[in-house]
């Protein structure tokens, strides 16, 4: 057997780094958290630059998790969020949760960030986009290490807009990406910080003295999770590529690309050479071969992913 391609080799932050910021341990001192964040982001940096063939699916899964972490109640279910996007016609309105997820998806896909669109997607007032854009400009070129510049950017947004929520995390992730020289941001901070509620977790309130440390710890944990997810997707992509030669259907290559590019693909996705039914048969075959997963558990309106 040929060796697996480099793009699918797993890479994890060293165990000593993740141990420094493990959830069970008490809040780490600032230097520990910054050290762990550096080590974890260095591993993630390699994966981002590899730009693996399945990077699209990986990025969109992170966007899904970020949206789920920041939305309340049933609307924040990963399953409902997937449905909101998959079952809305192009140009249709997917509702507030779907719009927030779409904003995270656009961020993760690297579409040039227009703060007005991001703010609108996240349900923030239009004027908030100005504050977000100003915070980005102020911190993207800061001389601080990336996670600290990101923490400061989030704090700036929260200081101007106490109810900002997700918008502050988006700005932080954009600043982090800019400081690390990534062309496209990854949704990270929201994965670990989630909803900030008035009177919520001590240390997770931007503006408090502990915020930069909390942010470093959050980035360390989030980067480790993103690396784990990358390894899972790498293994799944290998299984998918292994069965690809067995598929004779026209359009099979395009169907596989669709799975590598997004978190969830419906059998109604237009793919040249394949009807709805043909695509569904192909996906079901991939599930049978253990090369793809059906994500909904439903018998109709099924969605498939790695």
């Amino acid at each position, binding site marked *: 057997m040929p060796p697996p391609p480099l793009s699918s080799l797993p890479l994890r932050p060293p165990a000593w780094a993740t141990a420094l910021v493990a959830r069970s341990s008490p809040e780490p001192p600032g230097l520990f958290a910054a050290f762990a964040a550096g080590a974890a982001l260095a591993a993630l940096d390699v994966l981002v630059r590899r730009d693996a063939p399945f990077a699209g699916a990986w990025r969109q899964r992170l966007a899904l998790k970020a949206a789920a972490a920041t939305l309340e109640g049933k609307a924040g279910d990963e399953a409902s969020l997937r*449905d*909101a*996007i998959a*079952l*809305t016609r192009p140009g*249709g*309105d*997917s*509702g*507030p949760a*779907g719009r927030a997820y779409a904003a995270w998806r656009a961020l993760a896909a690297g579409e040039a960030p227009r703060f*007005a669109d991001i703010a609108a997607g996240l*349900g*923030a*007032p*239009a*004027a908030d986009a100005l504050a977000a854009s100003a915070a980005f400009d102020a911190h993207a070129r800061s001389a601080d290490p990336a996670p600290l510049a990101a923490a400061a950017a989030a704090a700036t947004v929260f200081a101007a807009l106490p*109810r900002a929520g997700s918008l502050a995390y988006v700005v932080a992730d954009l600043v982090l990406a800019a400081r690390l020289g990534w062309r496209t941001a990854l949704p990270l901070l929201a994965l670990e910080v989630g909803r900030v509620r008035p009177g919520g977790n001590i240390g997770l309130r931007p503006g408090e003295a502990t915020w930069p440390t909390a942010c470093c710890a959050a980035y360390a944990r989030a980067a480790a999770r993103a690396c784990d997810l990358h390894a899972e997707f790498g293994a799944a992509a290998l299984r998918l590529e292994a069965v690809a030669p067995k598929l004779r259907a026209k359009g099979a290559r395009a169907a596989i690309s669709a799975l590598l590019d997004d978190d969830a693909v419906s059998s109604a996705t237009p793919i040249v050479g394949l009807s709805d039914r043909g695509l569904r048969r192909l996906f079901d075959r991939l599930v049978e071969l253990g090369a793809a997963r059906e994500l*909904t558990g*439903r018998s*109709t*309106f099924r969605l498939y992913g790695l």
Partner: protein
Amino acid sequence: MARPPSDLDLDLDLADLPAELRWREWMDRIEAVLFAAPEPVTREILARVVGHGCPLNLLIEDIRHELRGRPYELIKTGSGYALRTRARHAAAIRAGFAIDPEVRGLTPLEAGVLAAIAYEQPVTRAALSERFGREISRDLIASLRDRALIARGPRAPQPGAPFAYVTTGRFLEMFGLETLGELPDLEALQDAGLAQASEA
């Protein structure tokens, strides 16, 4: 940010005017644009008629201040800014245009359904019927859609793929909200006995 090309060759910076008159002219332009607009005007559009980097927020504050005592006001809504008659003149306007309040107003059930959609969107008619313990008719949904207060959102993954409904920008505008985040907190309303807790 690049400005869209303009045939009007409007002098934006008004460099030859003294500061006070320049401010006055900018305020007048903003008010004129809002007055002429059939729908809320975004900040981007407003920025096209005043000097580069002009503090729009302050201009708008000054216009608002000036409109105190007038029967209309400058409001901020989902997609931008608009001039609106003040609510206390509603009766006069209805009387003047002989608008039948029965025709214009929402029935209590319609208002209830609209509120349920606002909080639970996207939500299907079947889910609404279950919520209200009675059939929510297609006509009621159609009446809310005709007023552009709700629109079709995603389809629900159920037999027949029914549409789930979402509220619109018009809904925000009509209720004077800037975003859905400004809806009263449902838990607080329940605690105050103003709303019933959901069974779900």
